Structure formats: structure tokens, C-alpha cells
């Protein structure tokens, strides 16, 4: 019978039909790598070479400058305030949105995303309008000698705004997918709300949480536009690292600018490494979970698989 062979050749043809010839494949891979290399790898390499243009000594010298130190300190302080605040908000918002049904949930979810859509410059401007000398609270703040705009609190506020959605956005889909069966079981068995959160929910969301935190942190340390509007660019006082990079660059201190920039690039690379590790871990856990025998009576689908 020729039916068998034609079937088999059909199958082979079908298999060949779901991929491309090696030539096309390598051409596409080459093109993709060239695109990535041109736009991602070259800029990174440029930061490293420009920073080390005058040797390692000059590089370290640039980093040891007091103004650079002040910028690094301010950046760390800003991130240290911003990330925990957005963390608490992210967990609270995700708990309310993922575990409960209420009216206006879709609107709330959209509003959480809003800061991503707003231009960083507009984000900075709105705080100037609220707290600046001409703003709503400007006269009152001046009377009480409190400085927010062109000072550290303004920088922190603007940073909080631009990093606002990161952690909530990671947690909401994750907690929605996990449902609330486990929490309900814990409550029924007599656990308090806090115990349920610490012992049941937190272990379930810890990777998503960490993921959100590192992305939030990277953006908090690297934010430029919003912070630039509210900072006032006072050297050694209200310059974060990205702003310090700008100042040095505009003063044609190329090596110093790229030296500080290289620290930020290292931060970005560390962020990517941690992020990849979390993703790979999660992938492994999912695979392990899929390999487990089903605990509940198997549905026909599961039995067939």
C-alpha cells in the first residue's frame, strides 16, 4: 500500500513546514543578532570604553570625587524610600484587586498603570504645580520654611510617581492566577489575617514580588526626566546619579560622566541577571509542578494527557 508511505512523507513535509530552511534560519538569526548588537550591545560597550579612555586610575579618580559620592548617596536614599513605599502599595492594591470583587475594579487597575503612560517631564511638572513656589502649597510651605521642590523630598516624590505601578503590576496578575483557595482554607482553619498573609500568600508571591522590587529599584535609581524637573540641579545636594552624569557631560568631562554612567550600567546588568535568575527558577518550578501527579480526581483532559 502506498497510503502508509504517502502519509509518512506528508508528515515529514508537515514537519518541514513548521520551520524554515537552514539558510533562512541562520539569516534571520544573524539579522536579529545584528539588530540587538547594534542597538543594545554597542551602547553598553561604548560606556565601558569611554569610562576607561584615560585608564583605570582616571576612572577611579572620577568616582572618588565628593560630588559623585553625594550623587550616589542621594540616589541610594531615594531608592531606599521609594521602593518600600511602592512595595506596601503594590501588595495592598494587589490584595484588594486580586482577592475581592468590587465595583470600579477595572478603573482602579487602569489608574494603577497611569504613571507609566505619563511623560516623566509631566510627572515632574505636576509636583512643581503642587509644591512649587507658585503652586498650591507653595506659600504655606514657604511660611513654614519647608522645601520640597528643588530639594530631596521633591526628588523622592517624583521618583515614587514614575515607579508607582511596578510592583502592583507584577503582583496583580500573579495573585489573580493563584486564586484565593489557599487563603480561604487558612482562614477557615483559624489563622488570623496577618498569619494568612505571612504564611500562605507571601511564600506564593515571593518571586513575583522580588521581580517587581528589582525593576522598581532600577527605575528609581535611573530616573532622569521627572527628577530633573524637580531637582534644581544643585551640585552635591540635589543631583542624583543620572543628573550628575548630565552635569559632567555638559561640562565636557567625558571620562567622569561615563565613569558615573558605568555604575548605572552595572546596576542595569545586575538587575537583568537577578531578573533572569528569577525567571529561570520560576520556569523550573512550573515544570516540576506540571510533572507532579494530579491531586484531585483527574478530569478527562488530564487523564488523556
Amino acid at each position, binding site marked *: 500500500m502506498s497510503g502508509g508511505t504517502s502519509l509518512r512523507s506528508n508528515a515529514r513535509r508537515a514537519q518541514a513546514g513548521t520551520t524554515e530552511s537552514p539558510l533562512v534560519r541562520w539569516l534571520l*538569526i544573524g539579522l536579529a543578532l545584528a539588530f540587538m548588537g547594534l542597538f543594545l550591545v554597542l551602547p553598553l560597550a561604548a*560606556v565601558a570604553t569611554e569610562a576607561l579612555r584615560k585608564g583605570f586610575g582616571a576612572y577611579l579618580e572620577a568616582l572618588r570625587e565628593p560630588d559623585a559620592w553625594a550623587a550616589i548617596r542621594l540616589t541610594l536614599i531615594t531608592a531606599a524610600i521609594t521602593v518600600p513605599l511602592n512595595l506596601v502599595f503594590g501588595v495592598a492594591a494587589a490584595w484588594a484587586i486580586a482577592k475581592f470583587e468590587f465595583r470600579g475594579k477595572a478603573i482602579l487597575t487602569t489608574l494603577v498603570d497611569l504613571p507609566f*503612560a505619563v511623560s516623566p517631564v509631566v510627572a515632574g511638572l505636576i509636583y512643581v504645580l503642587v509644591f512649587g513656589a507658585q503652586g498650591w502649597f507653595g506659600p504655606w510651605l514657604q511660611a513654614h520654611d519647608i522645601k520640597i521642590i528643588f530639594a530631596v523630598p521633591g526628588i523622592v516624590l517624583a521618583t515614587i*510617581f514614575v515607579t508607582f505601578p511596578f510592583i502592583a503590576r507584577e503582583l496583580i496578575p500573579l495573585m489573580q492566577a*493563584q486564586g484565593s483557595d489557599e487563603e480561604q482554607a487558612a482562614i477557615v482553619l483559624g489563622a488570623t489575617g496577618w498569619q494568612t498573609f505571612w504564611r500562605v500568600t507571601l511564600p506564593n508571591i515571593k518571586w513575583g514580588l522580588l521581580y517587581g522590587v528589582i525593576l522598581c529599584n532600577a527605575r528609581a535609581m535611573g530616573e532622569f526626566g521627572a527628577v530633573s524637573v524637580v531637582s534644581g540641579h544643585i551640585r552635591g545636594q540635589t543631583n542624583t546619579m543620572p543628573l550628575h552624569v548630565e552635569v559632567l557631560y555638559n561640562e565636557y568631562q567625558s571620562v567622569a560622566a561615563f565613569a558615573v554612567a558605568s555604575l548605572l550600567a552595572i546596576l542595569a546588568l545586575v538587575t537583568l541577571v537577578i531578573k533572569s535568575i528569577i525567571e529561570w527558577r520560576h520556569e523550573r518550578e512550573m515544570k516540576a509542578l506540571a510533572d507532579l501527579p494530579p491531586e484531585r480526581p483527574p478530569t478527562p483532559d488530564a487523564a488523556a494527557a
Partner: protein
Amino acid sequence: MNAGASSALPSTGAPISRPRPGKPRRVLPGFNLTLGYALFYLCLIVLIPLSALVFKTFTLTWDQFWAAVTSPRVMASYRLTFGASLLAAIVNLFGGLLVAWVLVRYHFPGKRIVDALVDLPFALPTAVAGISLTALLAGNGWIGQFLEPHGIKLAFTPAGVVIALIFIGLPFVVRTVQPVLEDSEKELEEAATSLGATRWQTFWRVILPSIMPALLTGFAMAFARAIGEYGSVIFIAGNMPMISEITPLIIIGKLEQYDYGGATAVALVMLVISFVMLLVINGLQGWQRKRSGGAS
């Protein structure tokens, strides 16, 4: 923005039992506390400051507002911002699809590193991206030195703006298309091939329609991000009025001249555009969910 994460989240896998929607929903505590705090924080950080923008605009007369947002210099900045953002998003549409395709369908050494590197523009501060792209494209830079003798100038021209915006928007299309390509069923392609379709026809008629919502979502996200972008652009643009001055820079310029009204008016225009883009993206994502829900 979290598209990178969604690929790591369980889309299929262990059976997920959703609680039935119905009456006995409030077994869990903390609804009032968490919702209340979330709303309080949202109002404090986002909504009240944003409303300040609207209220400040109301202090202008209509003529003042109109003059501020339609002056020739501002109009030129809209043209540049939208034109460059659109071009960059189109480049990212094709480049992003290519990278996503290669990462999902093919195996090659170093694939995981390439995959991780896609998110670099999310992690690298924009100012760093700006100065390093400028260093590359300037007349004495690695790339610029080869282009300059041929009369091609990229740094300090509108072309530089496009390049910075391509960098900024690169991850969006990749990260929205990648999970959809991973989930797409090979059986459909096999069927198409055994029915006599060429590989190109299969791609055009079977694969492309299934990833279209994701592709457009990524495109819209890259476009929206590019419109608001400031940090990476100002270093490379040259910032010449009427030629290479983007709209966010107009706002900064007006602020530096203490023209708060004018800055606010232009900012309101940008804010409205952001809202529209957010709605478009939400609509596209809804379309995508419906599509993937119907497929599986």
C-alpha cells in the same frame, strides 16, 4: 511594561481553580484596609498632583491656552515627537517581531543571554543610554566616523532622536509577541503546510493573524513610551528649536523661563495623548485576551 514578567507567569500548567463568583466572597479579611490604603496612596501620589495640572490650565483663558499649544515652535516639536516616535515604533515592530521569532523558534548558542539582554532598555537609565548613543554616533564615535565622510549625520539631528527612541522601545514588541508565539499551536501550521501552503503563505495567513493583537499592542506601547521620552533623547537630539526639539523639552524650556501657564498647557496636551494611548493599549489587550481565550 510587565510583558517580560507575563511570559514567566503560569499561563498553562497546574490546574488553577478560580473561586466561583458569587455571594460568599468576603471570607478573607483586609478588604477595607487594603482597598482604602491603595486608594489613599493613589490619590496622594497620582490623582491629586495630576488634577493640579488640569486646575492650573483652567487659570488660563482659552486664547492663552490655544496660543501656548499651537505656537510654531510647539507645533514643530509635535511633528518631531510624533514623527520620530512613529518611525521608531515601526522599526521596533519589524525588529521586535524578528527578535521574538528567532528567540522562540530557533536554537543558537547564547540564546539565553540574548533573551535577557532584550530588557536592557528597561533597566538602563535613560541618561546613560543617551550619552552612550551620542558617543557612538558623533563624528568621532565608533559608528559616526564611518558615516560622517559620506555626509550622513545622525547625532544632533532628528535621525538621532529616532535612534534613541528605537533603543527605548525595543523590548515592548519582543515581550508582547514572545509569549503568544510560544503558545501558538504548531498543528495549525502543520495543517496549512499539508494543505499545500508555502512557508511564506503559512506565516502570512496563519501565524501573522494569530499574533496580530500582540504585535499591535507592543507597537502601541513602544509608540506611547517614545512620545513621553526625555532622558535619552536630549543628549542626542542637539535640541535646536524648530528642528530637533521634542515636546517634553518645550515644557522644560517654558518652566526654566517661569512660564508655568505655558508649560502646563503643553503638558495637558501630552497628558491627553497619554490617556488616549492608554485606552488604545487597553483595548488592544482586551482584543488579545479574547483572541487567545477563543483559541485555546
